[in-house]
């Protein structure tokens, strides 16, 4: 046994090691480095090259699970001042978000969510079929209605994680790309993170932000649950006349779409294929057959729209569709932040800030109880209350 105090007691700031350079890891690195902590971030590939960098880019609070809303709203406050924080606005646009109900039965969840959203101060309202047709005459006739939330929108996913990482580096963080981690171990004083290439990083605090691969790293304890990988598929058309102002989604989640400022329509739906080793994904055949047809049904007058690119990325899903955020009771100083189940992009910056607050002060103003890492051990998985 060591007879000296753990180094963390003597230091003014804890040493941080973040594993995973997606949006969550990069944002956490930024907030912690900006607060003066010595931060090392280890990324297997390049910063933001997995789900964080290739997702739909939706920045949405609308229709979220009530448990996620406070975190989502905290995150939104960061989104709107990214330029000031990290020196780049990441192409954020906020034309609002529209959730469409195809049939009457799909109106019920929208109606149920509305008071929840309003309680959290969101400017959301229901639109009748008639209002929809008046406001968005290019939508297919016969929709039951929709819910609209002002202030939501989209950003350029390719810039966000690299933007945070770059700002973190400027604040003094050490960002190492191409550095896979093989193990996280409990050391004599703090944690030991072992990169595959050899050596070790000793830290008081370790944040596991490795998304779909959160449980592939060898750890001295069992993980609460393993994220199930999925590879949502995206498509983009060549530039089209501008008309789709808000970001659109269906209650069913079968398709979501937006129009870029250059006019390209970006839409997602269906799932691609994941390679046998679990590290790469590619677009699948079925979504190519089905998803463009759904879009044509939703917006019949698309003209000669041509798809110019399709892509996928791998994200990790939990049984209840909610992320795992926090420390397990017997693993003091090891934080988990993963399993965002397809809606982590918008929350990423907020999660980074929460983690920074938890590390520095032991608490955060956001109730994270819905994301408790131990919840899967206690109860059978609940079903999520969010609408895709």
């Amino acid at each position: 046994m060591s007879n000296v105090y753990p180094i963390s007691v003597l230091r003014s700031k804890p040493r941080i090691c973040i594993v995973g350079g997606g949006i969550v890891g990069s944002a956490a690195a930024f907030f912690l480095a900006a607060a003066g902590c010595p931060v090392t971030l280890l990324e297997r590939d390049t910063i933001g090259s997995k789900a964080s960098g290739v997702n739909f880019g939706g920045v949405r609070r609308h229709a979220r699970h009530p448990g996620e809303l406070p975190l989502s709203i905290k995150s939104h406050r960061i989104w709107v001042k990214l330029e000031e924080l990290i020196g780049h606005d990441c192409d954020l646009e906020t034309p609002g978000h529209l959730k469409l109900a195809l049939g009457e039965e799909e109106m019920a969840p929208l109606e149920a969510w509305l008071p929840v959203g309003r309680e959290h101060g969101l400017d959301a309202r229901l639109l009748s079929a008639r209002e929809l047709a008046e406001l968005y005459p290019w939508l297919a006739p016969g929709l039951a209605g929709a819910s609209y939330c002002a202030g939501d929108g989209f950003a350029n996913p390719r810039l966000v994680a690299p933007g945070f990482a770059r700002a973190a580096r400027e604040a003094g963080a050490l960002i190492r790309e191409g550095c896979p981690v093989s193990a996280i171990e409990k050391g004599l004083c703090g944690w030991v993170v072992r990169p595959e290439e050899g050596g070790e990083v000793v830290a008081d605090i370790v944040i596991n932000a490795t998304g779909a691969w959160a449980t592939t790293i060898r750890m001295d304890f069992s993980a609460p649950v393993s994220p199930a990988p999925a590879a949502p598929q995206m498509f983009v058309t060549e530039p089209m006349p501008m008309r789709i102002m808000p970001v659109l989604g269906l209650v069913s989640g079968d398709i979501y779409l937006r129009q870029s400022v250059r006019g390209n329509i970006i839409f997602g739906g269906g799932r691609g294929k994941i390679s046998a080793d679990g590290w790469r994904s590619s677009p699948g055949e079925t979504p190519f057959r089905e998803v463009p047809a759904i879009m044509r049904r939703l917006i019949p007058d698309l003209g000669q729209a041509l798809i110019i690119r399709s892509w996928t990325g791998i994200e990790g899903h939990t049984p209840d569709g909610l992320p795992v955020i926090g420390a397990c009771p017997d693993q003091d100083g090891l934080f988990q932040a993963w399993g965002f189940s397809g809606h982590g992009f918008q929350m990423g910056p907020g999660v980074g800030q929460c983690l920074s607050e938890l590390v520095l002060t032991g608490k955060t103003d956001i109730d994270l109880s819905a994301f408790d890492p131990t919840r899967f051990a206690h109860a059978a998985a609940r079903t999520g209350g969010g609408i895709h």
Partner: protein
Amino acid sequence: MAHTETRPLCVAIVGAGPAGLRAASTLVKAGLRPILINEAPEPGGQIYRRPPKALLLFRSAKDLYGADSHRASALDSAFDDMKERIDYRPSTSVWNATRRNDGRVRLHLCDASGEVDTLDCDKVVLATGAMDRIVPLPGWTEPGVWSLGGAQVMLKAQAQFVGRNPVFAGSGPLLYLVAWQYMKAGATPAAVIDASTFSAKLRAVPAMLARSAVAFRGLRMAVALRRRGILVLEGCHAERIDTTPTGFLVSWAGEQGSGDISGDAVAIGHGLKPEQQLAELLGCRLHFDPGAGQWLVETDRDGRASVPGVYLAGDMAMIRGAHAAETAGELSALAVLADAGLAPAYDGVRRIRLRRSMKRQDLFRKGLEAAFPFPSNRIENLPDETTVCRCEGVTAGDLRKAVAHWQPADVNRLKAMTRCGMGRCQSRLCGETAAALLAAGSGRDRSEVGFVRSQIPVKPLPIPARERETQR
């Protein structure tokens, strides 16, 4: 590996230019019924592109294809002879290629009406050809500025001029060929601005003697252009293109001083670039070829790629021209047959002759590369305001700024940060320029910054106009 199953060997050929047609006729001769997929409505590829039938009345094969007319006619009749014995799919593009677990290749097709379909085959010969290689310059995106290949297609397929007094600029054999073809057809080119120097061409003479007749023909075209009084500026670059009320003003500079030339159209190009996306999607290895200054798909001398069952032929493997493409097409088909245990009796002797011919073509190619070196330094010195990616409106300055700001590890990262190459052409036109700017801006070699990875669909795919019937 012998083909032992009872099912006949299924071979698909993508592309019906000289390489694809020759591969098909070789397989037909061996008793197979290959599937020939052609993006264009008529066979012949870009080089022997057929005009719509009505226009043929006005222009003979000799007029259209010049000294190569006998080759064009021979391929034409080869196609007519085998038409009934192949599964021919005209007006069909291949927008994706994947490898199935059983080792077969799946091609994803899209026909003229936008219907998609898949096709599984045992072996695939990729003969997808090449496209213009463009070095941007200020003004190159103005309407009325064409690629050399585009200007040639206008003449060959539509019997139209891009202008009556066009300025031709760039380098490579196509530069003189197109200018000469325009002259022969009755236009008066304003000038030919050739980036390569006389001394470079002189140094390349020994290698070019491997095909002295072709080299001589090129020389004759240059002489004919000069004799007609057309300004030929060797060792000079087009520096910028400005629009004027009557057309364009092209500023040039180089060994012969500097100046401005006006014309009513401009056509630019610096050689050709292989269309290798399908090979890349199938996982074939690429390597950087310093001579060509390009990434090329690796093959053995008969056209086998690094992935079993995938064969390459023609310009998509390496830019060697139409004659070599025919040779390569036949060689790749013989490789297909040999690998399937179906090698015909004549195979051995024939293959030796073809390989010997390829060697000569290769020597000639090296001569051309020396005579018309790719002007990488032009890209490095592009003015900041030059548009590089016309689809997304990304300039050389934007790219330089992004290189400094993000320090991208490779050109794909640079693409992600700037959107350069995310438009309709999928980096075909701008990927090389972006890579050269990244290499220059980070003190690396082109071979160290990679190539822009292909993404599907490699050809734009229409969103179906009506709902498809749901199968299965």
